[in-house]
């Protein structure tokens, strides 16, 4: 298997605002290797979240080609049929997604959230509690999301992602709603685990310090890779 997790060429994404097409990005290309981390930066509306959605198959590019974890996808208006099944399989087992909020089911305890995510990924559910322990929230395992702090919720979201043993993690402002100190703690956990498990990481963030911890950054505002 190639060490290249993502290879995207000439991606274009447009929305319609009324009758006017609005281009979010056009001619965008990027690569990501195993164990590598990439920060997507840029002002609000520059297309960071949209690009992450495209990279996990929740949205579809209007043009360009995408090869991700060995599977090739061509541009089309909506993912359906085999492409949708394939994307589903990738997200289920190999691509972990973390959002700024809404990563947990409010009706389930933190432990049950991790178990549910593992079950969907067909992973062993036994180490779920261990993952919560490793993320420092083992004693909160039976609490519900609304009974813990924002930082603890994001740790639980990371526990869910790592419990599924992903090849690639896509994180959209994972520390955006946290205070500075908690954000640093969560980021620490994220980068530690990512480097220990050798999975790829793409991070959309406004936080320049967080972006600088990544191997590379891609400024979508100026489309400039460093």
């Amino acid at each position: 298997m190639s060490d290249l997790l993502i290879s995207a060429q000439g991606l274009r994404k447009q929305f319609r605002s009324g009758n006017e097409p609005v281009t979010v990005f056009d001619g965008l290309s990027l690569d990501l290797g195993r164990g590598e981390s990439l920060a997507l930066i840029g002002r609000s509306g520059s297309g960071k979240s949209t690009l992450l959605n495209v990279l996990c198959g929740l949205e579809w590019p209007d043009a360009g080609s995408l090869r991700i974890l060995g599977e090739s996808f061509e541009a089309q208006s909506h993912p359906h049929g085999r492409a949708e099944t394939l994307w589903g399989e990738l997200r289920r087992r190999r691509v972990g997604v973390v959002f700024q909020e809404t990563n947990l089911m409010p009706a389930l305890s933190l432990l049950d959230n991790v178990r549910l995510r593992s079950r969907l990924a067909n992973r062993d559910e036994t180490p779920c509690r261990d993952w919560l322990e490793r993320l420092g929230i083992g004693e909160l395992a039976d609490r519900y999301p609304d009974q813990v702090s924002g930082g603890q919720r994001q740790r639980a979201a990371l526990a869910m992602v790592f419990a599924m043993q992903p090849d690639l993690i896509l994180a959209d402002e994972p520390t955006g709603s946290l205070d500075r100190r908690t954000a640093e703690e969560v980021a620490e956990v994220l980068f530690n685990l990512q480097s220990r498990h050798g999975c790829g990481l793409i991070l959309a963030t406004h936080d320049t310090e967080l972006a600088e911890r990544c191997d590379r950054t891609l400024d979508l505002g100026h489309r400039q890779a460093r």
Partner: protein
Amino acid sequence: MTVFSALTSHYRRHPLQLFALAVMILLATMLWTGVHHLTSQARASLDQSEAAVAERRQVVRADGQPVSVTDFAYLRREGLCVMPWLEVSGPDTGRVVGIDPLAAACFGTDTDAEAPWQGELNGQPFVDISEATGRAGGQASLSLLIDRSESAEPMPAGYRTAPFSVGPDTGELGESFLLNLDALGVLVLLITALLVRSVYLLGLAQRRDSLALLRRFGVPPRRIRRLLVLELSLLALVCILPGVWLGRLLAAMLGDGFGRALEGLFDAPLYAGQGGGWLMPVGIMLAVVLAACLVDFLGPMLRVLLPHEKSRRWWPPALLGAGLGLSTLVESLPALFLGVALVFVAVGLWLPGLIGGFAEARARRTRDPLARWRYRELSVLVRRLALPLVALQFAMAMVLAVQALVTTFESTFDRWLAQRLAADFYIEVPPQADIDPAGAWLAERIPDAGGQWHRVIRGTATLAGGTEGSDTQVDVLAIAPVGPLVTDWRLLEATGDAWPKLAAGNGLMVNEQLARRQALDIGESLTVRLAGQTVELPILAIYPDYGRPAGELLLGAAILPTEFSPTFRSLSVSPGAMSIDGVTSQLRGIWQQEQLTVRDNRSVKALATVIFDQTFLLTRAMTLLTLVLAAAALLLMGWVFFSTRAGYFRLLVVWGMSRGQAARQLTRLSVTLTGLVALLALPLGVWLTWVLVHRINPLAFGWSLPMAVYPGFWLELGVLSLAIGLSIAWLMRRQLLHGNPAPAHANASIGGER
């Protein structure tokens, strides 16, 4: 910007939510107005039809000769208020009744409904008597109707009064049915109130954030509540008027068939259609809307009365106990209705807790985290949609009860008709005529023609020593010969060979009401005084006699003493191969009477069946309409509510489920929800049927219908709940498939509830 405009600004950003609220109020108004209008129209129409066919009095000649215009002129000159009724029938004219409105002017208006001769004579067959005379090429018969108030007065020499009837008297069967319709109308109003209340709460839930913001800006909560009430009242005013109009339109559309049936039956435009005022439905709906909002103000009072959470928990069982106790034990209709209301309130309070408890228990028991999530979502869904779910449960219970009730009424009505109108024709025996030669002739000829007959003698008797130790006067129905016209009656309880023993004079039968009141059982002996003679006879059977609360004994005519003075005598005849004209002609000859009163029971039966079928159809349509509205309310509110939970289903898609799989989770959720509601509606529906049949009817009329439960309806209800659940899932699925792909805002507003 004022506080009010800040409050309503929510709807400027979310016009669909405002539309949903408006549609709910409009539909709820339409439903109740439609049901109310149909019920009142059905009542008015049945009243009118009964008035049209109700037994009146006529003046006949004592010598049995038909009355003529000379008799009319003589009686009027004697100062009697009589009116000519000329009935003409022929192949070309059909049935035409000529009446004289001028002569009818002296008739009192003591009946509730308008008599057919009042008002304009623009309908067939009621025409002016001069016109009827012109058409009298076919058979014509003149009758002289007398005003009720004068019928008790002594008649001039040579004349007497006699009953005059043109159709079936449904007795209290129709009244009973209408009382049940009224009870169901109240239930529909309750469901409507629940729907309006749920709409109001939904409006609050949608704007929780905006309201919190206003409070933070220093606006007092009381002012916010007042403004919300004002807002809803304005919205209600705007929606109630078209709702009432639509309800009346709906009632007119549904009632059209009913009206046609009535007109076909009585040949007169009896169905009032668009009559009735607007003020009452508008006023009642406004009151319902305001009550739905103002019930919140009771909250603080309740908290004062019941300060502890624990004491509030005892409310539903306490209400249920009180309701069940009242509805089982009391002997007054208002208290019984209060009991029913209490049971419904208790069940309504309990439903969310019951389903929530079930979901929580299942969630705890299962090891599958996906199933656990589904049960927990179910629990949230039940809490958020509690009111429309309760409304749906009530509507389902009502449908069950009405289906069972209507089916019971239908079969009862069929049996009632079969019992009352067993023979094809009914011939009244003139007062002075000797019934025996007529009986001998019928006994000789009718069986040979493959027909059946019996004579009926009615009178009164006295039962010695009833339950209260005193003598009781009862009606007597004596029949001879005892043949298939009666032996096909359904008996509630009977000894072996009841009919042969009755024919042989070795016993008697009692009607259900007498058996109930005197606590009589088969096999017991009754001491009966008939025309001064005392006989002791065993009870052979108890027969149903729906709609007739008086006690009655059925005897073989042979045991009547010769001194027995009948109040009425008739012959019931199914002539078989013979023509009824041949029979009546022979009887006229035997009795030397020019005119006989003959009623065609077949046409009476057919017409009565048509009118009742239409009434039953309407009732079913109304209840189904209620169910459709309750389902639509759940659909609409489920759709609005789901917009706050859709994020979690999208999370499943993010975690690798296909949208189809996530939608299937949604379908399982909604079908489980509606299925559980249907399951809980089942006992409530059966209980409501029991109350209507065994409590309300006996209390109101002193008699009871047989109660039947129809498991087929339960199955239908199951299918219906499945259809509602699938519809909700389909609507929500559209949101899931077409919405934002990422669950970015699922925690906003109330979406984070667990």
